[in-house]
């Protein structure tokens, strides 16, 4: 094979809920070091696809391969142990614990305590929460919680990071900072970002996969996607009334 190795691949992936085919025949490929954005209108199957990738759902057809190994439907904690970090749409953090404790829990798996503590300090400054280390996470602002969750994911040192709407509910400055953070992360890790916000995707400028009605509509660079007529129709506001 030429070029960088395939990290994550789906083969004819399909998910059916009763009579609804939420995801069908998706053949998706992510190479090592890539930053891929996944967009699509509401109901396009983004969330289902995301859950299939993370083992939260067992596909009704096809499979998900990570480094060539079938990981469809394996336990959540096993997904993590393979080196896949996940950030969910609604920040999934330990609300009752302090910021530091949140990161420590993430950093301490498979690491001696001293190394975990160093890791926590490093990430605290990276996500600009060093001043709030002792605060209870439940008291943080929404944007800070989003960053904290990013930090939690980073603390596990995954090879592949899956982000579900990382910029949701953020102010413009926060979005800019998040985009910077994602580009910085991409220097060493592969990422898949599910996003609504086209502005944000433009900031992180990468290859984009457009999902529509459970299928891959098109896969191209951001500039080409914006010019693509069908994408404009289904997604970018000029929706044709069905």
């Amino acid at each position: 094979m030429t070029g960088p190795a395939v990290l994550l691949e789906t083969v004819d992936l399909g998910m059916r809920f009763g009579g609804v085919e939420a995801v069908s025949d998706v053949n998706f490929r992510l190479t090592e070091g890539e930053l891929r954005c996944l967009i699509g209108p509401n109901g396009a199957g983004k969330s289902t696809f995301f859950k299939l990738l993370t083992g939260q759902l067992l596909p009704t057809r096809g499979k998900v391969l990570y480094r060539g190994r079938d990981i469809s439907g394996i336990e959540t904690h096993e997904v993590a142990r393979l080196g896949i970090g996940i950030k969910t749409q609604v920040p999934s953090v330990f609300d009752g614990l302090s910021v530091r404790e949140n990161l420590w829990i993430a950093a301490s798996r498979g690491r001696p305590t001293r190394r975990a503590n160093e890791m926590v300090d490093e990430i605290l400054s990276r996500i600009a929460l060093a001043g709030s280390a002792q605060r209870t996470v439940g008291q943080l602002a929404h944007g800070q919680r989003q960053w904290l969750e990013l930090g939690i994911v980073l603390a596990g040192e995954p090879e592949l990071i899956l982000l579900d709407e990382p910029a949701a509910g953020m102010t413009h400055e926060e979005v800019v900072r998040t985009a910077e953070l994602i580009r910085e992360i991409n220097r060493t890790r592969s990422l898949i970002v599910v996003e609504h916000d086209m502005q944000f995707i433009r900031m992180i400028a990468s290859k984009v996969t457009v999902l529509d009605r459970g299928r891959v509509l098109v896969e191209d660079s951001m500039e080409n996607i914006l010019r693509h007529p069908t994408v404009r129709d289904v997604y970018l506001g000029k929706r044709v009334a069905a």
Partner: protein
Amino acid sequence: MNARSRNGALNGGALNGGTWNGRAWNIAGLVTVGVVGLAAMIGLPLVLELSSLLDVTVYLILAILALSLALVWGYGGTLCFGQSAFFGLGAYAYAIAMFNIGESTIPFLLAIVLPAAFAALLGYFMFYGRISDVYLGVITLTVTLILFNAVNSTAGPEYQIGEARLGGFNGIPSIPPLNWPGMPDSALDLNDLFYVSIVLLMAVYFGLRWLLVSRFGRVIVAIRENEQRAGFLGYDARLYKLATFTLGGALAGLAGCLFANWGAFVSPTIFGLGQSAQIIIWVIVGGRGTLIGPVVGCIAIQWLTAFLGSAQLTKASLAQVVGPTVADALSSVMGFADLSNTSLILGAVLLAFVLLVPRGVMPSLLDLARFLVRRRPADALADKAERAT
């Protein structure tokens, strides 16, 4: 913010010990418990008569049981409605083994291992079968009631395990006492049982404190806070919950063994609804998410139960405790006969706590203490500085 996350905030601050303040509070708490425990151990036998010492002993034994649920529910987040199942199994395992073996080392160990194994088996099916929290409560409650009915119907002479007759609803009387390990002739007397109980209670308390600052303890609290996130980080929540549940079963079994020793008697009521509910009440009143809370809650409620049961509660005796005005009011509201109704008063106490102090006594008291300390000007300044950073 809900009570649970505030509760968690308390733990989070205490557990990671990051600020000097948090660490100081932790050490102060440990020292206080250690000093009070030692003082009780040395002082109580000097000042109390043997019968009162015996009353205290059972409080200590039940406090170990309270700690088992404090771990499983308060920290692990698993509301086990049938903690009494493991308590009862421990008591019965000890009794039956004791009649057959005669020397207490193996019966003592069996009383811990058997309930732990049963908890592990039950927990395996519950946690790996992905039973949700509500059903978990229902299942554990059902299990203890099944045990109650099963043991209750073993009255006939055919229900015999070796030398031990199960005795059905009559229970097993005259259970031989513990002896010092390997010395069947030196049985523990009632004084010894007090010392053994208080030492074991302290060992369990400090052992759990240690466990909860260890990585394992921090992870089970994290799983309580957000199981999905813990899974995303690579922690197998089922395994951690199972381990916690099993440890809780072992501690309840230990308490059961001591309890069988204390009265030299065990009957099926140990598995009953009243017993199961009581353990939960201790934890609610004392405070979830703390260890000392359930211990205090257990001792206070047991003392209150005994007090209400023994003191023929008259208006005059009530007036001595709560003052004549309150006694008048109470007797006119409740009618006089009801004043001696222990269950009614305990029920009122529980209701009052759930409504007025939902987090329990200890978390509220600790917060009050923190508040009072922080009010000192120097600390208030430090507090401001901390917030500004």
